[in-house]
């Protein structure tokens, strides 16, 4: 029982925050709760603290919209939050799509779909930065927020809070895409919001640290990691995970039986030594 807890404690808390936030947002629309109103694009806590999606604001800027003060404050709050807890903490602790892609990934591992497809992934993980750039270009040319009109993240989240419509189709598309077409396809390759938070996450404070002396090279962490390229130092060097693409999901920490991985605040002095 204790090992079960040890192996899934962060997963439990992640699901708790993901579902908890959905419940709060849903309650705001359905029963008039004021704790957390709006949705992931823009929300307000207790009617006082605004929060706004900085990537949406960036698209608005590209589209030529005038940015209101409330929006800018909201963007500041969100940027500061993810600067502290890790940019892509959004992806694994907040985003509702994470539950869908995690489910697809879990099935992929259990069913052995990787084995029929071979090892080679047909797309680069840098695709997301291209999509990010493209979204801003299209926003600029078309004068609308390009990603916001196709974003399955907002579609699903808005769907749960305000009514789904055909939003279930978006969920199914992502699930099947990740399951049968590309491993970690949406979150790990395409999603420009993840790309945006990856860039922001380069500078964030909370990091996973690897202690090489404790590592027994079992490689469970690399197997379970949705962004396994960020764990390049496993068994080689004692280093923090400095890539912004790490989602701070902490699955690696959970599966490690040797205490070779842990959360800690980024040590600036150490970064100087490694040149990052």
């Amino acid at each position: 029982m204790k090992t079960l807890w040890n192996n899934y404690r962060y997963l439990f808390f992640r699901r708790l925050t993901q579902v908890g936030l959905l419940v709060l947002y849903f309650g705001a629309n359905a029963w008039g709760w004021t704790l957390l109103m709006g949705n992931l694009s823009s929300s307000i806590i207790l009617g006082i603290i605004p929060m706004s999606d900085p990537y949406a604001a960036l698209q608005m800027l590209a589209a030529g919209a005038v940015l209101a003060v409330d929006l800018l404050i909201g963007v500041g709050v969100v940027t500061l939050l993810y600067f502290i807890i890790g940019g892509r903490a959004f992806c694994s602790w907040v985003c509702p799509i994470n539950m869908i892609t995690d489910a697809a990934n879990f099935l992929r591992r259990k069913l052995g779909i990787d084995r029929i497809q071979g090892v080679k992934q047909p797309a680069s993980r840098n695709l997301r930065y291209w999509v990010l750039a493209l979204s801003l270009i299209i926003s600029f040319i078309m004068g609308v927020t390009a990603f916001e009109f196709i974003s399955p993240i907002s579609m699903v989240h808005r769907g749960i809070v305000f009514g789904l419509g055909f939003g279930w189709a978006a969920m199914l598309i992502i699930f099947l895409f990740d399951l049968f077409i590309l491993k970690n396809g949406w979150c790990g390759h395409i999603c420009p919001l993840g790309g945006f938070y990856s860039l922001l996450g380069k500078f964030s404070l909370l990091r996973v640290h690897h202690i090489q002396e404790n590592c027994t090279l079992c490689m469970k962490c690399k197997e379970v990691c949705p962004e396994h390229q960020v764990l390049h130092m496993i068994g080689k060097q004692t280093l923090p995970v400095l890539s912004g693409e790490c989602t701070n999901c902490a699955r690696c920490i959970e599966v490690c039986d040797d205490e070779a991985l842990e959360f800690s605040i980024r040590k600036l002095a150490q970064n100087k030594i490694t040149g990052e």
Partner: protein
Amino acid sequence: MSENRPEKKKKKEPISDRRRFILNMARGAGIATVGGLVWSAYVDEVTASELVLRPPGALKEDDFLKTCIKCGLCVEACPYDTLLLAKPGDNKPLGTPYFVPRDIPCYMCPDIPCVPVCPTGALDESSVTTDEKLDINIADMGLAVVDEESCIAFWGIQCDACYRACPILGKAITIEYEKNTRTGKHAFMKPIVHADACTGCGMCERACVTEKSAIMILPRETVTGKAGDYYIKGWDKEDEKRLENAKEIKTTTELSKKSAMDSLNDSLEDLY
């Protein structure tokens, strides 16, 4: 056989770094173009919906689509559940707020709770403010239009449901009396909408008694025309002021240089 082998090997020689770089660039550009065009086409299509009614204080549709962050705070603020967020399948710009007056109209709350909560200014407080006070009566969500063919008041049957439902009764809708020559002894009581006062709240559309409402709200842009600078109400001092900003318009039609006589004597061919 043995002679052919070296040739085959030649073909499989690894491509040069330069070629690899150029091919990779071309591939990237190609994929970006495909993705960009498909994406743009989709966005263009989903934002093309014209017949969508926005909450009070909404910016012009173009600016609204740029500025609205699709957070739904206006929807949550609305006490009558009037406002909806467009879902996939609604065929409206995805995630933007709208309302369907026949289902639930805007009840024109004096404190306009949906507008101040907007974090981006897509719902512009200043457009519904007079003398530093919120004023729902100057809101412009759309314009009521009467279909005279299906409005039973235009048939001569007595009905003033829309007139009674109008929150700006007597200004946005008035009743015009007219003799009913069919019976010779009754009056038509025709509802007339006044565009300058109508806010497009849709309470008339909601109240209309016909099977499908004979009075309906449409976006103002859709149902209003524009006389342009050619035509001025010469009897109206206010309207004459438009002349000050009028731009000169030159006619570009080429006039025929033939004499009128020729035109009459020729066959009709040159007319076509």
